[in-house]
């Protein structure tokens, strides 16, 4: 799984460069979360603009990251959900748990 990460005013932005997050690759995302949180990241925005498909394994890894961030008194926020991904968050009610933004800029603005 490919990622691009940037630091903006103390917030880490992770761009997921895959069209799917499923049971075949979700562990790679989990490993990347662990790496970021172990390297002093507290506040993380995960941009899912390129992700067209997610399954319950992918949702589970995002939940895991959310809980890791909370344990560190930080946050994990999401941006740019495509229609299938948005539907899965709504189906599993996770849209009530996560802070979800239309764009990365909107997500970053929420920290100000």
């Amino acid at each position, binding site marked *: 799984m490919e990622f691009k990460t940037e630091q903006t005013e103390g917030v880490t932005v992770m761009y997921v460069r895959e069209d*799917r997050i499923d049971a075949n690759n979700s562990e790679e995302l989990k490993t990347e979360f662990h790496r970021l949180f172990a390297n002093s990241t507290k506040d993380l925005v995960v941009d899912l603009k390129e992700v067209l498909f997610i*399954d319950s*394994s992918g949702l*589970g890894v995002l*939940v895991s990251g*959310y809980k890791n961030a909370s344990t560190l008194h930080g946050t994990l926020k999401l941006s740019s959900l495509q229609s*299938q991904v948005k539907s899965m968050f709504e*189906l*599993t009610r996770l849209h009530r*748990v996560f802070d979800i933004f239309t764009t990365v800029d909107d997500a970053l603005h929420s920290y100000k």
Partner: protein
Amino acid sequence: MKNNINIDITIPSHTRYLRMITTIGEKVAQEINCPEEVRETLSSQLAVVLTEGLVNAIKHADCTDPNKEVHVQIKVSNGDLFVRIYDSGAGFDLEAIPEPCFTSCGMEDKGRGIFILRSLMDTVKYVRSDSGNVLEMRKNIR
């Protein structure tokens, strides 16, 4: 025009085949006689159902040996969509799987797959037998 479709696929028990099974499901949905907007929703839902069902067979039915195979049947008949996923693993008790927690307090990483299947399909059954197990799902698409 009759619109009956019956597809049988046998694949190795490995998650690397998820993308392929998803694509097949989307193609099948495109051939179903129904309004365009319904077809698009059905295509997306069938992709999810096949993925969750296959992962269930591979991971949760204890069929993790990649030398084993999973058999997937997609059938459209008389206004119903049937998906059957056959595994040769140890199986599991469908009724013993609880609903996931819907709040951040007590929220688990796992346990949403069966809930998703039950939400998207009209019926979900897991039938166990000595010769293997089958996850049987039906959805009315009339």
